[in-house]
């Protein structure tokens, strides 16, 4: 007899689907089938079953090979590294639970380090923008139940957040949107003809890097004021028309992604998008939401928020929190050679950071905590394999609209493998001993 676990939360993207069903073998040890998830999500669950997964910490040897060590040795190495560093950097935290994040923050505080999450390389610019101008937003259910104008700007959910459109935005039938996609108009702004753009009623093929101009042009068009014949490659008639589509809806939303947060103008793009949204509220109801990537990057920002008051790139090296992205952000700290130990967890900077930053990591005392072997683990001195959060251990996570959902454990981790929380708790305990605090 197989066994089905329902209401499982998918630990992949910020969409944080919570309707996954996982079919287990009769001994409850193997994942046989994953229902409702997108292809990438399903792959995450199956990946947990990989036979070749490391089950013991691995320490890099002088000749570049790895030697298995015990968790006790891994705890000792990590605690010594962090306790002895002048300014350690603890990065990642975006694909683990808020409980693990919280212990990580306490370790950072105790060791006088810096702590940062993946917002530093994706939606950090969004956070800077909302510190400038605020953000009128809502939960995804408001979109489902009310929205008749859907805008995807600089993002391609068809590939990056595969169930976003069907669960929340374009297709679902909600309380006031009983006709589903027929009751909605969809605008996509993207220089590429993406699979998302193909679904749009209006595709604005903005010139690469000209989002800022187009956003400001929409603000101008809202007021019915003068525009040049084309802006950012878009004829002005189309811009006036788009503004009219936005205004004439009952409830609208702009979803935006890395196409605007990390292209030319960065946070200024988002400033303009938020101001456009605010101004639309003088005509109708409008909201805006970032398409957050890692499933719990939002959660780490929230935990940092209530513990220190800042959502990412927090420097606690003076015992209190400072925040100055560009100065206290991970890549900048690495490139300036300001940190003397690097701890990464629940993300893969080795695959995503500029090569110079990765080289810096490889030169530092370093620990990478990850269930699998990744580019990051391969440049780190110590790799600590852990349970897969959201599959082998539960814990709280925050969806892209800040809704907290408690992830479920579906199967046991491989025998003897610690969870992030267990490993971090042991490291924290050891650091307290080393520092002589209770």
């Amino acid at each position, binding site marked *: 007899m197989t066994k089905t676990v329902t209401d499982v939360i998918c630990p992949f993207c910020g969409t944080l689907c919570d309707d996954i069903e996982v079919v287990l073998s009769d001994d409850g040890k193997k994942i046989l089938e994953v229902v409702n998830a997108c292809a990438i999500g399903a792959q995450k669950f199956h990946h947990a079953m990989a036979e070749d997964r490391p089950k013991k910490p691995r320490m890099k040897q002088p000749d570049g090979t790895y030697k298995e060590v015990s968790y006790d040795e891994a705890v000792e190495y990590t605690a010594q590294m962090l306790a002895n560093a002048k300014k350690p950097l603890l990065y990642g935290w975006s694909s683990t639970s808020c409980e693990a994040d919280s212990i990580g923050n306490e370790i950072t505080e105790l060791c006088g380090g810096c702590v940062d999450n993946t917002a530093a390389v994706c939606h950090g610019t969004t956070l800077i923008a909302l510190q400038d101008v*605020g953000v009128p937003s809502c939960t995804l259910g408001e979109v489902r139940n009310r929205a008749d104008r859907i805008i995807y700007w600089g993002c391609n959910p068809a590939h990056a957040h595969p169930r976003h459109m069907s669960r929340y935005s374009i297709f679902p039938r909600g309380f006031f949107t009983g006709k589903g996609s027929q009751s909605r108009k969809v605008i996509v702004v993207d220089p590429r003809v993406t699979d998302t753009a193909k679904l749009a009623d209006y595709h604005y093929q903005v010139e690469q890097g000209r989002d800022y101009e187009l956003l400001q042009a929409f603000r101008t068009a809202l007021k019915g004021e003068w525009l040049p014949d084309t802006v950012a490659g878009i004829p002005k008639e189309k811009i006036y028309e788009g503004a009219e589509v936005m205004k004439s809806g009952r409830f609208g939303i702009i979803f935006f992604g890395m196409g605007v947060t990390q292209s030319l103008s960065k946070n200024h793009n988002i400033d303009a998008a938020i101001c456009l949204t605010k101004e639309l509220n003088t005509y109708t109801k409008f909201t805006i939401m970032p398409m957050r990537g890692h499933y719990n990057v939002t959660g780490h920002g929230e935990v940092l928020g209530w513990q220190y008051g800042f959502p990412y790139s927090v420097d606690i090296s003076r015992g209190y929190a400072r925040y100055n992205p560009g100065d206290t952000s991970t890549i900048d700290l690495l490139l300036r050679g300001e940190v003397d130990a690097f701890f990464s967890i629940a993300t893969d900077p080795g695959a995503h950071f500029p090569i110079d930053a990765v080289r810096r990591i490889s030169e530092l005392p370093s620990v990478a905590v990850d269930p699998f072997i990744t580019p990051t683990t391969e440049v780190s001195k110590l790799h600590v394999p852990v349970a897969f959060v959201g599959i082998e251990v539960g814990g*709280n996570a925050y969806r892209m609209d800040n809704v907290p959902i408690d992830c479920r454990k579906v199967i046991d981790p491989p025998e003897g493998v610690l969870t992030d929380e267990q490993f971090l708790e042991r490291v924290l305990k050891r650091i307290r001993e080393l520092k002589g605090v209770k």
Partner: protein
Amino acid sequence: MTEYLIKNGFVFDPVLKLKGEKADVAIRDGKIVETTEVKKPKVIDASGMTVMAGGVEIHAHIAGPKVNSGRIFRPEDKLFNTVPVKKNMRAQGGFSIPTTYKTGYAYAQLGYTTAMEAAMPPLFARHVHEEMRDTPILDEGAYPVFGNNWFVLEYIKNREVENTAAYIAWLLRATKGYAVKSVNPGGTEAWGWGLNCLQVNDPVPYFDVTPDEITRGLIEANEYLGLPHSLHIHGNNLGNPGNYTTTLDTLKAASGQKAKNKFGRETILHHTHVQFHSYGGDKWANFESKAREIIDYINKHKNITADVGFVTLDETTTMTADGPFEYHLSQLNHLKWVNADVELETAAGVVPYVYSPDIFVCGVQWAIGLEIALLAKDPMRVFISTDHPNAGPFTRYPRILKWLMSAKAREEQIKAFKQSDKVVNSSEIAGIDRELDLYEVAAMTRAGPAKCLGLSHLYGSLKPGVDGDVAVYDFNPEKEHTPDQIEKAFSSVKYLFKRGEKIIDNHEIVSHGNKRTLWVDVKVNENLQVMRDIQEKFMKYYTVTLGNYEVHGRHFIPNPFALEVDATR
């Protein structure tokens, strides 16, 4: 556990009717006991000092999504006020929206040991609980918001009291909530379409029910269940000139109804931050105080309580589930605006605000808060709050005490207003010479809120049997004090005990205590219709599954404390 004997202090306790008499207070096993019951106590010499029960905060925004939005979008709120890690203390930061650790420490330093988070969006209950978990020392509870909830709107429209009550019981359990809160009833749902309900008879779009019906329906359901606290309301039309008539309309919903519960609560409606609801005039230019109209009504109606929401004249961060109000405010002051509408349930907005003593309206708002407290006849029914952080941060309570206890302090402030004459002409504060004494203060900050919350068996007094929550202030009530000496004395307790544990010793935090999360666990008859409605709404309209809605687990609530209510019949 260590026994304590706090000797020779001037004790203020409205429950024991102690008005500053010298008395000893004994603590054993976490509780207050008769002084004869401690054998080898540690003695705290409180001679020349003021002794009260731990303070009870009835309304503050200190944990959860909108508070954290405030923290995150206002890095400037941390300028010049961060405190590094210390022995026994985590790092701290923030002025109007302090970090959770700072929140716990700061309340303790003021002598508070219990605090209620005033508005919990049910879908975000986990977030609220995580923050409360990380707020040391204080026992805390949170009020889920009901006044714009689709289930409630439908049941009340159909006059289904039992169903409203069964749904409330279910949601209190699902969110581990403490009481029934209603914010701008109906108006926040209207805000889903960019609209509002400003008057109590404005129908809610689509749902076709009025704010007045919602308020009456929630009072009825609250008393049907016999919950510890009454309905806790933030009425319609907050913050607008001329809104005092709306407030009177809101309060009328309580007329003729009686409290039913086993917790010693005698009131059925708590109106929060009435300062924001006591405005006259019909535009900002002729804005004036209607504090007397509101407090007269409250004085006469013994089934109503209120907290004030004093304006502290600071730069602060406003935040409320009154979504349309925050939008309106951002249109007035042009500062940054956060909005967060929550499916089927509520909304929230956050906007920074500067209550400048140079601005006429701010001066009148300051006067209104003080008038309400000074004209209150029953301090057991009118409580001190700043609606933290809306009218100012709670850390200003000592300054408020200064203004309440010293007419001279008020006079100095009135003189300091840039438009002093206009403020005086638009309010009656200059003509009030009443000065509150510490007995009244103890009622407004301890005994009163505890009783109104249905928690007088645990908090609010020093009567044997209640929790060992005791604050000792270095303040001799028999001596003369300058206004600033009053403020200073109440800014930092000399000693604080929480459930019998010493938390503050000689002004220093020495322990994080063992905080509890208070929630209300109500048993009701099985109600198949409500269960079906819940299943249907989750299936069709919520974006989380029913199976993923309820908060449970020690990672959210390490130390729960449930008040049990049996409402089966």
